[in-house]
């Protein structure tokens, strides 16, 4: 601080001296700006206006280093077993009143509670960090580039980063993989080079621009407040179809009794109903195809045909096949084939056909 007493006159000039006038930033006055306060007094002595006196002092704005790593969105990222590229998105904000680099480290939880309440029980494969190179907010394989740090992020700068990984095909509905992303404030100034870790100015005030670390504590262990780091977490939750398949049969008629109390004798007609149910809480199963090789002791009833996507009443296998499907499917080389299309969670679809006992 300067204390200087000025007796020098400047006439009517109000010396408004602001060096390094700062742009209006949410993060505030740029580091290194000088705040100069100048005061002027006008007065009279003996009825005569005197030359004005001025006094001033100047202080330099120091560097306040703060970054924010934040998960984009507030819900888990739903993935399916075998998904090669599961993507979760983070936003990195530079709240520093200067340009800095931001180092990035992604990690996986080893058990414990994940970001959205589930229990972490698997790791994704090939965990990687990619920056949204084209700025469209969506991960584009081959366009967005893998990074270990963000280069030269300006004050108030915001970057989108994707943490990606693969989901093993063996994972089942409800499995959770927790991930974390931690940012580390690093010195900027050299493009395409990751700067050194920024540390707070130790000890006494220095003549230059001092550094104050001003971040809040993050979720990663050891990421405390005012350490130049920021972190957040997210998780992948497996959403798989919970499919169950049952095969029901009933006798329609026999050559002796007809349709009245038919018996399972050679020449009798049997109706087979294949029931596919998808449990509640899972994912929709699409392109559900069925192939059913007929027992050698039966002959396919081509006059009845095959019916697909019928409904079912009750709980398989004790419910009733409603026989309300649409004709379709094929019979070839002793195998009945058909499709049920999409089976949504909590629903059941059927495929049915008839055969006779040899």
């Amino acid at each position: 601080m300067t204390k200087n007493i000025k007796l020098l006159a400047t006439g009517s000039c109000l010396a408004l001296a602001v060096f390094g006038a700062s742009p209006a930033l949410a993060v505030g006055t740029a580091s290194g700006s000088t705040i100069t306060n100048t005061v002027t007094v006008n007065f009279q002595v003996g009825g005569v206006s005197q030359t004005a006196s001025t006094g001033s002092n100047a202080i330099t704005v120091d560097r306040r280093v703060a970054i924010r790593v934040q998960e984009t969105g507030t819900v888990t990222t739903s993935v399916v077993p075998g998904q090669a590229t599961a993507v979760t998105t983070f936003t990195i904000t530079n709240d520093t009143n200067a340009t800095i680099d931001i180092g990035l480290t992604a990690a996986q939880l080893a058990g414990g509670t994940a970001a959205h309440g589930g229990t972490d029980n698997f790791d994704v494969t090939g965990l990687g960090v990619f920056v949204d190179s084209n700025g469209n907010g969506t991960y584009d394989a081959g366009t967005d580039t893998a990074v270990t740090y963000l280069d030269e992020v300006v004050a108030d700068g915001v970057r989108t980063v994707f943490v990606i990984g693969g989901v093993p095909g063996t994972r089942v509905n409800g499995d959770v993989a927790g991930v974390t992303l931690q940012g580390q404030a690093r010195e900027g100034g050299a493009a395409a080079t990751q700067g050194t870790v920024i540390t707070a100015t130790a000890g006494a005030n220095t003549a230059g621009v001092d550094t104050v670390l001003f971040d809040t504590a993050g979720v990663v262990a050891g990421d405390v407040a005012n350490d130049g780091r920021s972190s957040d977490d997210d998780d992948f939750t497996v959403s798989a179809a919970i499919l169950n398949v049952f095969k029901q049969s009933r006798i329609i008629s026999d050559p002796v009794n007809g349709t009245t109390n038919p018996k399972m004798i050679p020449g009798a007609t049997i109706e087979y109903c294949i029931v596919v149910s998808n449990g509640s809480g899972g994912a929709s199963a699409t392109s559900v195809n069925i192939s059913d090789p007929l027992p050698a002791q039966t002959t396919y009833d081509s006059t009845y045909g095959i019916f697909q996507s019928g409904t079912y009443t009750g709980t398989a296998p004790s419910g009733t096949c409603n026989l309300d499907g649409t004709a379709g499917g094929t019979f070839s080389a002793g195998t009945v084939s058909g499709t049920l299309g999409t089976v949504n969670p909590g629903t059941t679809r059927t495929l049915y056909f008839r055969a006779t006992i040899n």
Partner: protein
Amino acid sequence: MRILILLFLLLSPVSGHAADAVALDSSVFVEREVPAAGGKTKIVLEEPKVVIPGDRLVFILQYRNTGTQSAKDFVVTNPMPAPVAYQGTSDTVAQVSVDGGKTFAPLASLKVRETDGTERAARPEDVTHVRWVLREPIAAGAQGKLSFRGVVR
């Protein structure tokens, strides 16, 4: 923090009444909350060693009549440094300007015209100048202190 000592150029000759002068001293402090006994916090004024955006500053203007006669029509004008937003003063005689020093009045009575033409009550951050008009003459050798608050934008 860098300390700058500003030397103001003499733009016009000093009048013959060099003794009829007023000395001015502008100083600035940072207001900080520090822990105090009993789990409370107290506010202390510190030398502005480390100043970062959001810090609260207190500007103190000290004047002294170093001349041999009393000075009257004493008007102290302080333009707000651009990186500092005005936060008020406890000096009841202080007036402020929101138009670059053209007009002065108490803040509550000032209006600001938005770019879209609408008019709204002036807010502290709109203040461009602070001014004190002292009614009483300042006797030779007398001194006083004026202050206002600001926050680093």
